[in-house]
């Protein structure tokens, strides 16, 4: 067996690392641990987190009000065992604010920006839970990549159940803002007028009947306000596409070993391929390690206690078997030995909500395969 390297080797030459995966698989923690590890190796790294656990955010000194990366104090890191030769920067995404800032940047005047921000179609758009997180996460990534102040950007992705939402939702919102379909409907005079007017086509008449004229009028106002900015959205969307397809951008799949998570992971990989995006590898969290057989250590224990210990092992082994089967399935899907690497992080005893916890995860992620096997065996025994 070759001794493949860890995440560090995987991310050599990479400038943008997108951590995708379905919800509840430890994406935020993994993204933070990757950033910590790369910073430890000397890089200047920024991690963009989405909705981190409160305690983890506190541990990194994150402040949700800033919406800009901020350097994590070196002393804070080294006190918890995270020695960093480079720099670790972190931020928590504020979707609404990111959206507002984008409008402010693109609007021809402050007045126009304010008017857009007051428009209730915009307000709904920018604070709607579905879509706006994905759209603004990508917008933030793009902004940071343009500024070019970091060696590596690590992006955590929004906690959707469906990993694909992240790839599709921004496109949907961009399509809306570009308004190619809608502009066709809302020609200069505005659809509301045309539907009311005598010459309205049956199609527009039906549209008005289904959607209600006020909604059309509001949309018409919104797009009138956006004006030429719709073209900026198109240009930006093209930029973002280039960034995501760049050879220095890598997608990492973060998953757990449960049936549903693996199923989702396989689907995610296929979609990345389909979209022509670069799949760098998978991190599988919470893998139940294969534990050694019970032996004479239980001999001195009361019979009923020993029985319960044996039951705990038996139950644990059920999950270890499940994980092994699912990991084999994932490996087959990814192309086996020749495919991209799969990095396994074992089930740990507690949740990770501090730098020491990140450091533990980092050790597994950045170890070579052989070293990781040793660390896991130590944990299992």
């Amino acid at each position, binding site marked *: 067996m070759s001794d493949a390297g860890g995440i560090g080797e995987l991310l050599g030459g990479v400038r943008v690392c997108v951590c995708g995966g379905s919800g509840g*698989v430890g994406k935020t923690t993994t993204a933070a641990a990757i950033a910590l590890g790369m910073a430890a190796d000397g890089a200047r790294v920024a991690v963009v987190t989405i909705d981190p656990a409160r305690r983890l955010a506190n541990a990194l000194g994150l402040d949700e009000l800033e919406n800009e990366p901020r350097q994590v104090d070196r002393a804070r890191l080294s006190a918890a065992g995270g020695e960093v030769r480079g720099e670790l920067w972190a931020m928590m995404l504020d979707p609404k604010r990111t959206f507002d800032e984008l409008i402010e940047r693109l609007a021809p005047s402050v007045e126009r920006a304010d008017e857009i921000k007051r428009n209730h179609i915009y307000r709904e758009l920018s604070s*709607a839970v579905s879509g706006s997180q994905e759209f603004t996460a990508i917008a933030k990534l793009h902004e940071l990549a343009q500024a070019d102040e970091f060696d590596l950007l690590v992006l955590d992705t929004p906690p959707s159940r469906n990993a694909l939402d992240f790839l599709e939702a921004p496109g949907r919102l961009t399509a809306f803002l570009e308004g190619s379909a809608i502009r066709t409907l809302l020609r200069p005079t505005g659809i509301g007028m045309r539907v009311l007017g005598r010459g309205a086509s049956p199609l527009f008449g039906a549209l008005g009947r289904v959607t209600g004229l006020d909604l059309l009028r509001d949309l018409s106002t919104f797009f009138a306000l956006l004006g030429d900015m719709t073209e900026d959205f198109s240009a930006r969307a093209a930029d973002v596409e280039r960034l995501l397809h760049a050879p220095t951008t890598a997608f990492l799949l973060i998953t757990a070993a449960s049936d549903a998570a693996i199923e989702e992971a396989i689907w995610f990989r296929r979609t990345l391929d389909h979209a022509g995006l670069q799949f760098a590898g998978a991190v599988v969290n919470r893998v139940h390690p294969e534990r050694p057989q019970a032996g004479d250590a239980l001999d001195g224990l009361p019979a009923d206690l020993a029985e319960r210990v044996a039951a705990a092992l038996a139950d644990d082994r059920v999950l270890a078997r499940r994980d092994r089967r699912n990991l084999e399935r994932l490996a087959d899907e990814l192309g086996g030995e020749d495919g991209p690497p799969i990095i396994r992080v074992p089930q740990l005893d507690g949740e990770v909500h501090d730098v020491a916890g990140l450091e533990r995860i980092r050790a597994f992620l950045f170890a070579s395969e052989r070293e990781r096997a040793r660390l896991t065996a130590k944990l299992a025994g």
Partner: protein
Amino acid sequence: MTGLLDRRLIFVTGKGGVGKSTVAAALGLRAARAGRRTIVAELARQDGVRRTFAQPGGTFEEVELAEDLYTISVDPESAMEEYLRVKTGALGQALGSSRLFQAFAMATPGMRELLSVGKVYELAQFTRHTGGADPYDLVIVDSPAAGHGIGILRTPRTFAEIARVGPIAGTAQRIAATVSDPGFTAIVAVCVAEEMPVNETLWLRDQLHADGLELGAVFVNALLPARFSDAEARRLRAAHRRALGAGGDRSGSGAADGDGALGAALSEHARARAQREELARLRAGLGRSVPSVELPFLFAESLAEPELRALADVLEDVR
């Protein structure tokens, strides 16, 4: 208060990875056993319930899983096609086949959610709009994970406000009224006993409250058994240390010193303890007004019908 299973519509919400679909399906089984004709509706392209029961079928089909238990996977495109067909006749069909209109409708923020929740509303009607379909006693919605599924609950009202008048506004108003009628609709949450899910569940309760909605119950999923007392755990730790001392090479495959069993027991104990702490925090946060239901962790190689039936047994006390 009306019992949970006496409503006609239950929205099961919760973040991804907490077992929401599993709980929705188990709740469906529980209701079906009580003789209620039940359908579990999955949104956002999910079809896990149907697959768990190893049943064939496509999206937007009402598939029978067991006696009195059905499932459907609702996607917005099919929902729109059906809505236009039923509501607007020939013109609507012309619209539905217009690519321009499709693009317009699907790009409009919230439209996908409105169409999905509109189909759910249709399923819950005493008289179904779709020709010849039988009514259900109970519709259980496996809500999408984004934003805790709260977006889908808000969408009808938002649309009613934005559109103000017209057919969409009318439909949206009727749906919004149904969602906020506690005699008709219950909103429940699924979570696991970890920091983030517990925080999010408490946040969800507050958000719903601010919207004039109430959280009906919280299902705390995947609770590990409390197999050992703390005193026993101390004893196991001591034994573990002795085994480690005697064992030598830890990575050796033939370590016959029993520390694998102790390792499993101690790891489980640590996680079970952390879970109990989070569970206590959740209960304290919820207070008396929102009941919580505990569901055991299932040590199973895969989640199939027998596992769901086991969970439905645990839900037997839920009324």
